[in-house]
């Protein structure tokens, strides 16, 4: 590890130590006894889990497709096409790849504003209303739509987390040799069977890593939630907004205590991931 690496490690440890020294148990217990904070913890846990599941649902097929579009066999197939067709294919592939990275590079507030603007369009309003009707028919009349409601929290988390999950799944599938899938085709398998029976089981460690990354990313999400879901207590408040609200009202100890809950949850998830993926092959930093 380089000197700068040691410095960075020391910085992370110092940050955690400073947080834990600043807050005390009485601050923490008083925070946890607040029903509004307990609500935000539960909403965080539930919304992050739903956002991570949705992210995986999108990331697995998308990551697989992106990985295989860049595979050697695809290059071989393209070798039979005209140069202009190859150029067009590569342009489309890189464009899709770049578009999928936009949520990663956009400032979080911009993601929130963009979501808000999207749901002001006729299509967005229509979806907002239909979602409200759906929840009402399911007996959740309190959720009147998407914007400034719990679905907005999940959508804001999902929008950013999915991009990270896709990147992880793409890297995972790129590390998996596609030749066994091709052999599966000759054995009578459909493309879906080759994917689900041969490629997918090999990617389980990458799936765990993508889920964890999406979950942790959702847990720390703040900007898009602030703009798109608001900070209504007992309604759309998640842990990151609890930190913000406490800080906003001058309760620094409360803000740090809420931060420590976030830190603890993140550490627990990271340890669980490490344990689950223990013994896996790690190539180029990607758990496969």
């Amino acid at each position, binding site marked *: 590890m380089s000197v700068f690496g040691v410095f960075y490690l020391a910085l992370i440890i110092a940050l955690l130590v400073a947080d834990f020294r600043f807050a005390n148990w009485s601050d923490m217990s008083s925070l946890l006894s607040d029903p509004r904070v307990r609500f935000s913890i539960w909403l965080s846990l539930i919304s992050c889990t739903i956002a991570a599941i949705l992210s995986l649902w999108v990331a697995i097929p998308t990551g697989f497709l992106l990985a295989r579009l860049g595979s050697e*066999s695809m290059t*071989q*197939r393209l*070798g*039979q096409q005209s140069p202009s067709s190859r150029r067009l294919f590569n342009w489309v592939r890189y464009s899709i790849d770049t578009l999928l990275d936009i949520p990663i590079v956009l400032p979080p507030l911009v993601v929130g504003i963009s979501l808000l603007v999207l749901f002001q369009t006729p299509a967005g309003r229509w979806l907002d209303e239909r979602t409200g009707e759906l929840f009402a028919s399911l007996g959740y009349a309190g959720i009147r739509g998407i914007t400034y409601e719990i679905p907005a929290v999940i959508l804001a988390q999902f929008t950013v987390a999915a991009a990270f999950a896709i990147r992880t799944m793409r890297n995972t599938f790129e590390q998996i*040799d596609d*030749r*066994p899938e*091709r*052999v*599966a*085709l*000759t*054995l*009578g*398998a*459909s493309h879906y*069977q080759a994917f689900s*029976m*041969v490629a997918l*089981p*090999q990617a389980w460690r990458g799936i765990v890593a993508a889920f964890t990354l999406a979950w942790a990313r959702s847990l720390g999400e703040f900007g898009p939630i602030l703009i798109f879901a608001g900070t209504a207590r007992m309604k759309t408040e998640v842990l990151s907004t609890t930190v913000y609200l406490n800080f906003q009202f001058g309760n620094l100890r409360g803000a740090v205590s809420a931060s420590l809950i976030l830190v603890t949850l993140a550490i627990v998830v990271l340890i669980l991931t490490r344990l689950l993926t223990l013994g896996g092959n790690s190539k180029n930093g990607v758990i496969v």
Partner: protein
Amino acid sequence: MISVQQLRLRQGDFELSSISFEIPQNAYAILMGATGSGKTTLLESICGLRAVSGGKIWIDGEEITRTPPAQRQIGYVPQDSSLFPTMKVHRQIAFGMEVRGFSQAERSQRVEELASSLDITEILDRYPRGLSGGERQRVALARALSFRPSLLCLDEPLSALDDDTRSNLTKLLKKIQQFESVTVLHITHNVEEGNQLGTVHFRLEKGRVRAVVCEDSGDKNTA
């Protein structure tokens, strides 16, 4: 009968043109050629893993040039065996039957039969990781034969094996081909291996396939 007529295939600057040959029913065909001459490319085209630019491929009178690989009835054993890492050997062998909708009883019976013929009964409950090169190739062979294909394509299946294993597998290949009554197209660099196994011999040179007659002393070109 396997018939390839005027097959053309382009891969960047590399090109196979006017590939034509025929393999009689139940023959053991050997395809030889220099490294980079396009043997694997040709084999993968026959298996449906590469699109061809022109020409036609027939198996038992049925044209399969544009048929998806899953419907070609061709068993394929690649050079590296390409076993499925997360499947135990018995499921691996049954895979082709599973995706084709064979019953559990049929699958079990066929797996046992092939495992016995290829002497891999002991490893049926193991994962590919940790299997020897010879065991891996036997499993790949059993997997390719499981659904009783019309043609078995072998891409240098013995090239990475030691002499003893290679010698044992050569005898086994001959035995299993006769027992299963399957037509085989086998790529190899090894003349001795080709002479031991082949009943029909081809050589791929300069983008074309030529039939050759094999004699103990070597190859004699006839085409």
